[in-house]
């Protein structure tokens, strides 16, 4: 966490610093001995996360995620930047851009603009309000590290986009009231 803060202390969050954070996280994920499978049980259903380091206040949140094959998340914007790096397994991240004007409540259209495969030795990073969808691919569980600009318990409202419904729905913000 100190290394992340040292990266952002001068320049804040921008594409360059996010890339540097991703490289740090990828390097950490390569140290598999730090994340023995025995310490992180498989999901009872298909996905769960374990807090590793969660800072106080508006601090960062680092999690180990375990997800089984085919576990997915629809395109969503969680309002805050994040970086992910694989310990083992593979997860497809698809990136989207909203294409409507947002004037009709509940309606939205998105267009896929990119895709990366997060696997050991690789990671991905996204800025505040980027939209991504995830799917665990292959036949092995995906074990990954995810670092968020806020802890999950203090997440802003998450906007979920559904191309098949042409809709957007949100979950409530967990941010403290102003």
């Amino acid at each position, binding site marked *: 966490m100190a290394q992340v803060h040292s990266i952002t202390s001068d320049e804040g969050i921008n594409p360059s610093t996010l890339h540097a954070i991703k490289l740090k996280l990828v390097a950490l994920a390569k140290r598999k001995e730090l994340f023995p499978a025995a310490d992180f049980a498989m999901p*009872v*259903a298909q*996905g769960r996360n374990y807090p590793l380091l969660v800072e106080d206040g508006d601090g960062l949140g680092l999690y180990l995620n375990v997800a*089984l094959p085919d*576990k997915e998340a*629809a395109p*969503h914007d969680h309002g805050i930047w994040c970086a992910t790096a694989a310990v083992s397994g593979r997860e497809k991240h698809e990136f989207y851009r909203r294409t409507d004007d947002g004037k009709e409540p509940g309606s939205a259209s998105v267009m896929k603009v990119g895709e990366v495969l997060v696997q050991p030795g690789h990671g991905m990073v996204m800025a505040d309000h980027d939209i991504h969808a995830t799917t665990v691919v292959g036949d092995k569980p995906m074990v990954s590290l995810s670092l968020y600009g806020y802890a999950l318990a203090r997440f802003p409202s*998450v906007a979920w986009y559904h191309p098949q419904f042409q809709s957007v*729905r949100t*979950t409530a913000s967990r941010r403290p009231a102003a």
Partner: protein
Amino acid sequence: MAKTYQVTIRNSGQTIDCAANQTILQAAVAAGIDYPYACATGNCATCISRLEDGKVSLLPYGDACLNKAQIASGLTLPCRARPRSDVTVNWLARSGG
């Protein structure tokens, strides 16, 4: 062609067709029912509902959204649930159950 089942949405009082390879939520939204949902992929539990009758199979979902005790008590996630018989569901959001 996938087998089709009848799904009754107790809250709206409607019965709709739902193919075996379709989720209850997909069928409900396609039928114009204002079913409460957000992620639609088993990550948020906004759509959590009581399965009053019938059988479903579940696509992958997160542990935090539906646990074994909830399933045993008759709850399900329509965004992940595909019918395996005619079913009746009742969403818990907005109505308070």
